């Protein structure tokens, strides 16, 4: 007669701990496999490498951020494209962590959201290496969307078209 599988106490604790760790690690954090930096580090690196910045405004517990991480940023080609073309920066929209603006002003990550009118999460910003905004894209986006935005920024289309003009021409 087969013996029913009854998890041992230790096994059950391990499973619970792993589940807690997994759930704690995902909600609203930056996506795995991307080298996201702090704002200050990102700005320094962007200036040194003359690369634009891809700035991800997330929030702890944000479901739309997690949906974007799971369904969009999990794409290996997108990861390669964005890691090559941009310095990646992640900002927690409710955080009191300090950063230095290009003007020299010291503010918090949350205050950066107020200055850039980040009204929801996720919000994605494309910045020039000196921190000047190029485009702001709110909400859940697909892989195709992010490939389009990359074309707009990486191929300098933003220098003569607004994002809306570019997208209406592409639709």
């Amino acid at each position: 007669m087969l013996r029913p599988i009854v998890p041992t106490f230790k096994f059950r604790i391990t499973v619970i701990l792993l589940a807690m760790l997994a759930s704690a690690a995902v909600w609203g954090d930056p996506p795995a496999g991307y080298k996201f930096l702090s704002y200050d580090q990102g700005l320094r690196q962007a200036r040194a490498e003359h690369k634009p910045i891809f700035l991800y405004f997330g929030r702890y517990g944000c479901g739309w951020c997690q949906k974007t991480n799971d369904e969009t940023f999990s794409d290996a080609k997108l990861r390669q494209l964005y890691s090559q073309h941009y310095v990646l920066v992640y900002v927690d929209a409710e955080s009191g962590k300090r950063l230095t603006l290009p003007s020299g002003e010291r503010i918090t990550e949350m205050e950066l959201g107020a200055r850039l009118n980040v009204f929801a999460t996720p919000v994605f910003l494309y910045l020039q290496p000196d921190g000047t905004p190029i485009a702001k894209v709110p909400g859940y986006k697909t892989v195709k969307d992010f490939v389009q935005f990359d074309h707009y920024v990486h191929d300098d289309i933003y220098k003569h078209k607004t994002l809306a003009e570019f997208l209406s021409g592409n639709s």
Partner: protein
Amino acid sequence: MRTWLLLALLVTVVPAWADWHFSPYVAVTGAPKAGVFQHLESAGRRNLAIAAHTVALVWEDNHSGAPQVYIAFKPRAGKNFSAARRISTGKEAYEPVIAALANDRFVLAWEQDGHVWMALADAKHTSTPRRVDSVPSSQATLASDGRDRAYLAWAHRDGHFMRVMVARTDIKRAQVHLSGMQAADAAPPQGAQAYPALAVVPAGVVAAWEDRRQGHTRLFVTRAADGAAFVAPKPLNTLLPGRRSAKFGRGTGVTRVALAQAGDQVAATWMDKRNFHGGYDIYAAISADGGRRFGANELVQDAFGDNVPQWHPSVAVAPSGQVVVAWDDPRDDSPDVWLSWRKAHAWSDDLAVPPASGVGAQLSPVIVVDDQGRLHMAWIQRSGNGATQIRYVEAAWSGRSKQR
């Protein structure tokens, strides 16, 4: 009959600002200067305090070359503020707070080089600053009864998480000391705790803070009698049913709670993203029993602010019990300071504060209502080139509506 109709019409079109009579603004800091940035930022938004004869304001700016913390005073009967006096002593300092004590003295706290510091000040002197905590700490806030009872709260490093601590401040030999330090929640932290707010009520102290134990930020509130332990904390913000899903995450955003009190009337306000389409909204909850129970969460702003985010809420309670909330939002294209006050059954229409609206950006209001019912407000004025100035104004309740 026509005269009565005309009079009735006139009464209905009298604007909201008719309830408040504002004085002209006063510049607290000098002329705006390129590269110099003032900030009115602190846990609980406690940058302004009113003692018996003195108004005091604390802020952070970088005019010395690094962010440092400053204080300025004004006689309540006078017009202008004194020159700024530096109170921080380290390499960098941020987020100062202040509370009024008897004899026109003030207790101060701030973050300096990774720790919370405190001192005692009056219009002439500042005591030698003392470090509050041996472990990394930040986000200090203060509250007092305006006489001799004051409490300090702050977040300090406890293992993986920051944890909110509270202690009573005692004045001995012109120095400020702490006693009865305890965690706001006796249970070991299960997530980061941040940005505390305090209110000193007749029986003790009420504390609220941001807490990430539930996988998203929530606000918790607790209370303690003087010299006793805090009771188990309760959630302050309510969660909407059906909003806990893959689509909405573990919960909508909520952040930066502030408290104020008069007698046993305690008011809490915060930024809340339960309606995320327009970013944060300003919410409030009121306790009439010294923080034992808070009423339902109430939306403070009016419908004209629905489509833009609201930021930096500050709350005050008049001796009459009237609750006033100020914040900034960009509904008229650039940020202005807005005010709403709680009436018997609803919040007032939003008022664009006349001296703190219009050209440029008006940001980060801090408010206090004094023992005479006068509203005191300071805010940041930012011009197009980013240069800033701190401004201050007072307002008297006109009495058109009952101050309640």
